[in-house]
């Protein structure tokens, strides 16, 4: 497999009154072609900011993003435009990301026009109808407006638009969080079909650990802007090495009432603020295993077993 995306020591800081938001701190990872990398963490952990950095929608404070081997910060003009066609995004709230005054057909066609794909309007329209069919929308709906669709259908529109330029990488930012369970399953199935048929690569951002498990080959867990753990999905879910990963997994309410009385360790305290985070390991204030080492230095992301990376001075035993 080829590496499609790589980030090197990405940092994004936002200055605010009274300090600096450390949204993304020193994050390096890579995604292989055809792979789904799941990205999980609680609000404020920097997962959406990371998605935007990867797409070059916001500039990093430092660090670099490589897409197909090319450093995005070194590209500009036509070269950047061409590279960008290869990466697209699907958003959480399809309604907020669709222009209410544009018909669905025009919404899906817009990227084609912008990148001058297809020589005639008729040709583009044919492409749009084909895409609509692929994502499960009837081409007769071409002239309808976003408000005439249900939430699930709107997400299909968002997916069709992301596919128009034949991207290699799609960043999915909470694509099913706003949907009902039965519709969520339809969209997840669609995403896996599209991945198979078009050899797509996904960076799948979600706070829903069950959804991430279903879709991902590998999963990266973030806490306050830093990577805690990055491992193949089953390893991460069955034998987490970072204490935060384990707490997160244990907190998810499972649809199985026989498990409710299992003694579960719950995280205490609040989600900490990324403004002026603690020294050393940023999780240490909520971690029951933290000691002086954790305050003194930030644990580096180390490979504890083949393919399993964890940033902790005292990783859990397997």
């Amino acid at each position: 497999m080829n590496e499609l995306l790589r980030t090197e020591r990405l940092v994004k800081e936002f200055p605010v009154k009274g300090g600096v938001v450390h949204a993304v701190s020193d994050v390096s990872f890579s995604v292989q072609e055809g792979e789904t990398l799941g990205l999980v963490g609680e609000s404020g952990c920097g997962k959406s900011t990371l998605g935007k950095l990867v797409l070059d929608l916001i500039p990093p404070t430092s660090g670099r993003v490589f897409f197909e081997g090319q450093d995005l910060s070194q590209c500009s003009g036509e070269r950047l435009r061409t590279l960008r066609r290869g990466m697209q995004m699907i958003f959480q709230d399809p309604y907020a990301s669709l222009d209410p005054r544009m018909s669905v057909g025009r919404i899906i066609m817009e990227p084609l026009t912008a990148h001058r794909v297809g020589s005639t309007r008729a040709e583009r329209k044919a492409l749009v109808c084909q895409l609509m069919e692929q994502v499960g929308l009837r081409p007769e709906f071409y002239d309808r407006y976003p408000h005439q669709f249900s939430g699930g259908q709107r997400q299909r529109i968002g997916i069709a638009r992301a596919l128009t330029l034949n991207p290699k990488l799609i960043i999915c930012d909470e694509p099913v969080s706003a949907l009902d369970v039965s519709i969520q399953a339809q969209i997840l199935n669609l995403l896996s079909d599209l991945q198979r048929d078009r050899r797509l690569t996904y960076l799948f951002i979600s706070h829903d650990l069950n959804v991430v498990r279903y879709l991902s080959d590998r999963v990266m867990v973030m806490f306050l802007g830093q990577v805690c753990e990055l491992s193949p999905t089953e390893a991460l879910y069955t034998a987490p090495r970072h204490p935060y990963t384990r707490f997160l997994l244990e907190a998810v309410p499972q649809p199985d009432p026989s498990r409710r009385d299992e003694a579960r360790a719950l995280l205490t305290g609040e989600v900490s603020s990324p403004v002026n985070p603690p020294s050393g390991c940023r999780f240490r204030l909520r971690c029951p295993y933290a000691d002086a080492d954790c305050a003194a230095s930030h644990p580096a992301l180390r490979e504890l077993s083949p393919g399993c990376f964890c940033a902790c001075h005292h990783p859990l035993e397997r």
Partner: protein
Amino acid sequence: MPNILEIKGLVASFASDGVRERAIAVNGVDLAIPAGKTVGLVGESGCGKSVTSLSVMGLLADNGRVEAGEALFGGVDLLKLSDRELRKIRGNRISMIFQEPMTSLNPVITVGKQVAEALRLHSGMDRQAAKARTIEIFEKVGIPEPERRYACYPHQLSGGLRQRVMIGMSMVLKPDLLIADEPTTALDVSIEAQILRLMRDLQRESGMSILMITHNLGVVAEICDLVYVMYAGEVVERADVNALFAHCAHPYTRGLMASLPRMTPKGQRLYNIRGTVPNLRAMPSGCRFSPRCEFATERCRVEKPPLADIGGGHLCRCFAPESGEGPMGGVSR
């Protein structure tokens, strides 16, 4: 066991601009909440679960109206009470918490004052006693540094803390019934787990009943004793929580359970219920789920199945309820 609240034949409708016919959002719902128990009311958006509770509390929006039914609470029909009489019960004997605490809290009054005010209004405590009691309550619902938090405005607290304030406020008057409408939906998982545990602990201590309105079957499994499943304005299944998760009977419930990504390995398809929820103004005849049901027969399309007992108080609105491992159990696509 006596029921703390008994809803019978509730029908609620909504008017919308430019449409003469009112949309029926809740169509003949029967629901009983046993004393000291947690009852789950589950279903997808638009199924009428929130409208059911808002109707009972007299909190429907201006375009909403209760058409029929009764809601017996301690022998009194809540639907027949005047606004003034209802207000006495709301907050005093029945409390509500919602998904987004920010919208239920006054942004320009400190959270401590808001809780203390509720105390003074309903129990006639003086200022100082109310403040002391509020701080006690904050401590009880797990708010760290309660004295300092007393003087905070809602925007200065995290979502989890705001929900704790709401729970604290709902608990001050020791209600008999707490109605919680998606109380953890906006929270992170680690905070959700804390809030659910808090609700269970408070219930154990006070003996109150809880009506838990949620779309999350994980939350249901975590906290409920008895579960009602709603679809398109009607109850389609009612069962003890263990029975429901071990062998749910209605094709809709089975479909919901099967569409959850649980341990499903990558590459294997998730079950999905075909189609979408019907429009309130164009309800299918017969069984309302029949257009989406893969087991529907001709009879289902013309005749409406009753909510029937299929054994041991397990109710199901289906002509051919499943028991044990049915076709959906081994479903692959």
